[in-house]
């Protein structure tokens, strides 16, 4: 089934076309992005329950971008009607004309070319098997409650089993002089979150799920309940990590975090424009083991960050960022491409119509290799299997790594010993880690249960992943 387009967007389209035409009388470049997005969250736990819209993910509004031939200005608004079209045009005019008013002496405005556009008309929708709205809140909650009860029944030591899911259904309309583009997309994601107490310390384990689609995802969640509970109980016996550099095998979710945080942010080309990314100097150079081929793109995989065009009207790409260890190119929004005189790669994304567009990742992953997980573990004299990523922070300027992982399973003489350590901080220098990759499994897994920020804000949905990898990593 295809996702239906928003009735609201359809109703407002003629008015937005009129606004576009009015603005085009004054400015050489105008685009309008209209968004209607509904995100619904569900959560059940032992002593709490929640159903409702996600405040950040549910929004309806518009952003106009204009260029007066030299400078760019944007205006975000969420009311439009025939009666206030003049007011909107006047507000945009005020903003354009008062740009200099915010500048103290010594600061100037950056001049930009007007983007050259190809004529484009596009309409597209993603597909789903089971519409969560049709399934209904009651059926979704019943499903989550059932999982929760199974989770709590595993052991009295389980403090709580929180089961959550969200879905977003959105329609975007992009209008400019040459483009009329519409897309409707739905994704669903979820998580099992188990906790258990060790004195005052609460240990927890998290299993993520996601799909480009609908409520068909829910069936996957109940399969992992026992495993998830058992790993949480294992964590009660965990020891603090002994700092050092070790041979490690990373599960696909940890691989995904390394791909995303350690390298992905560094090839966002708005960072090239600011001279904030070391990667710019390494195009055409070896930055990783020859085993590594890395992709990013809204059309590179079918996951939660899949779309047909970005928030600047550029069609989705599958960008090969690293090919057999060589850094080939970055990913780019439209404005950065204008400065760098490159082609945009369909990575101009906004948190919502309220926010600026930046270069953002989409579905980011390493291709698979030819090894088995068993072979990878067997090849290690002493090291760790790293599982359950928690968070990471980018460092595009200096390629430092900070990734937090929940579990390191000890490997001795090629076998898992059963001993676990937690929590773990991964650090090091990105090329050192990527060049140390010596084995990769065949299977590639992507997941997009969380959101990605730029610094500490601008949250967008992304997926990341890859195969199991073997690498040398500093753990603390």
């Amino acid at each position, binding site marked *: 089934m295809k996702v239906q387009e928003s009735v609201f967007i359809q109703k407002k389209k003629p008015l937005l076309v009129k606004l576009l035409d009015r603005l085009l009388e004054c400015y050489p470049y105008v685009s309008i992005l209209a968004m209607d997005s509904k995100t619904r969250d569900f959560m059940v*736990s032992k*002593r*709490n*329950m*929640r*159903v*409702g*819209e996600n405040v950040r993910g*549910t*929004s309806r509004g518009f952003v106009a971008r204009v260029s007066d031939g030299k400078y760019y200005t*944007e*205006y*975000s*608004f*969420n*009311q439009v009607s025939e009666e206030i079209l003049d007011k909107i045009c006047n507000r945009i005019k005020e*903003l354009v004309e*008062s*740009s200099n*008013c*915010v*500048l*103290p002496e010594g*600061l*100037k*405005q*950056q001049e930009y070319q007007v983007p050259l556009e190809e004529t484009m008309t596009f309409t597209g929708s993603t597909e789903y098997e089971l519409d969560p709205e049709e399934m209904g809140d009651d059926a979704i909650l019943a499903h989550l409650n059932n999982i929760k009860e199974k989770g709590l029944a595993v052991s009295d030591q389980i403090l*709580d089993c929180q089961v959550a899911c969200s879905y977003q259904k959105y329609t975007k309309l992009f209008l400019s002089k040459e483009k009329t583009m519409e897309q409707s997309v739905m994704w669903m994601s979820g998580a099992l979150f188990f906790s258990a107490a060790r*004195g*005052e*310390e*609460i240990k927890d384990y998290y299993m993520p799920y996601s799909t480009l689609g609908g409520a068909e995802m829910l069936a996957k969640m109940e399969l992992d309940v026992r495993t998830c509970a058992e790993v949480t109980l294992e964590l009660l016996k965990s020891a*603090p*990590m002994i*700092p*050092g*550099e070790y041979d490690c095998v990373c599960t696909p979710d940890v691989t995904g975090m390394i791909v995303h945080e350690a390298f992905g942010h560094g090839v966002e080309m708005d960072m090239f424009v*600011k*001279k*904030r990314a070391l990667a710019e100097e390494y195009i055409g150079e070896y930055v990783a083991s020859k085993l590594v081929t890395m992709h990013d793109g809204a059309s590179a995989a079918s996951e939660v960050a899949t779309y047909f065009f970005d928030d600047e009207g550029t069609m989705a790409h599958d960008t090969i960022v690293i090919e057999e260890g060589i850094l080939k190119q970055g990913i780019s929004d439209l*404005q950065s491409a204008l400065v760098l005189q490159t082609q945009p790669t369909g990575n101009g994304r906004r948190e919502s119509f*309220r926010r*600026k567009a930046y270069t953002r990742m989409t579905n980011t992953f390493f291709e698979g290799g030819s090894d088995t997980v068993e072979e990878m573990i067997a090849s290690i004299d002493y090291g760790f299997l790293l599982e359950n990523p928690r*968070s990471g*922070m980018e*460092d595009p*300027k*200096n390629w*430092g*790594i*900070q990734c*937090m992982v929940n579990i390191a399973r000890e490997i001795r003489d090629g076998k898992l010993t059963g001993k676990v350590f937690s*929590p773990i*901080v991964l*650090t*090091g*220098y990105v090329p050192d880690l990527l060049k140390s990759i010596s084995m990769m499994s065949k299977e590639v897994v992507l997941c997009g249960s969380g959101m990605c920020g730029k610094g*500490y804000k601008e949250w967008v949905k992304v997926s990341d992943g890859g195969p199991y990898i073997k690498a040398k990593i*500093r753990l*603390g």
Partner: protein
Amino acid sequence: MIEQIKDVLGSLGIELYCIVESVQESIECFFIRKKLDLKRGTDLTDYSVTVFCPFEKDGQKMLGSSVLNLHPGMEVEELKEVLQKAYEAAALVCNPYYELNKGTKEEAVLADSTFAGKSLEENTKQMVAALYEADVFEDTFINSAEIFATHTVRHIVNACAVDVSYETYQVSGEYVVQCTTPQDVETYHTFSYRDANVQTLRKEVEEAITITRERAKAQNPPKAGDYTILLSGKHINTLLRYYVERSKTGMVYQKFSNYEIDALVQGQEIQKDALTMYLKAKEPYSAEGIPMKDRLLLQDGTLKTLHGGIRFASYLGVEPTGEYSSIEVMAGSQTVEELKASPYLYIASFSDFQMDEFSGYFGGEIRLAFLYDGKSVTPVTGGSINGSILEAQKHMTFSKELYCCEQYEGPYMVRIENVAVAGLQE
């Protein structure tokens, strides 16, 4: 639109609700070096509505709720449809019954801010000037900056006669400082002010420039091992968030925290400074319309307040306080000079310092630290720290000197013993 929403709620027979209207205008500027890359303006009106459904299940009184966003210009039929759907969802949410916040219509609270009375453009220009005033060096400069000037008017009404409103002004943002010699490095900084604190912002940028210069000199990680560490400023706020999170009524009710009033939550083995800490009210009302005031959270390491909204407070039988984002901590027992008198690793900058309020573990990658071995101070970079507040709280010594930012007022520095550092192997 509030009256229209109330009318529709009435027509649907929905008796319990809370409506939050937020009207926000902003000016946003994005700079690369000393050039304005993009200017943005926003005019946004939002309605967040929570509908409540009382019902009984297995003989127990319940109150389910569901939140939804309503959009300006929504037609009555659509309002009816989405509010009815939310009400039906609320009827599925089996949470024990509680009473909504009761109140009266209050006078609007105007912002007591030096930003008030000026245009957002003027406020932006003033703070941009402060931001760039210290940017006068060839080798160390502001690489890029984002600045957001906002004026927000929030209006909260509920079914139990709460009708309050207030306005806020804020200028917030982030900036990256780059130093090109002897190596090309950068540091990342954020700021947020409710008054035109131009001198504070200028001073923060000066400090950021100094820190970035030191970062450019740092070459190697420290050796792996256990260290006495020093943390300062915003990192102390992150560290102490553990106590703020653990004392939330939601954490206690759900058994993620065992905190009780008058319990010595800093532990029984405090060997150094005992914490006295206040929750600071930065806005006059919570999202539920609860009047906010400063509250004593910890007195000498002992818990004095459990804090949170109506629902969990009701379950625990404590006073609802609303949600807090800022703390004030009383000064410590030693001067910064005394804290630095014996060997230490002072971590001035992390890539992302984190505290896990569940486990109590804190850690992060070291962007810049100063290693004092008893003889000399060496800047180092790389490696990470990994510690537990449950151990650290026994021997934390805070400075007498104070530091202030939007979310934290308190000691500038803390000294913590025996923290594991991952770094160079021997």
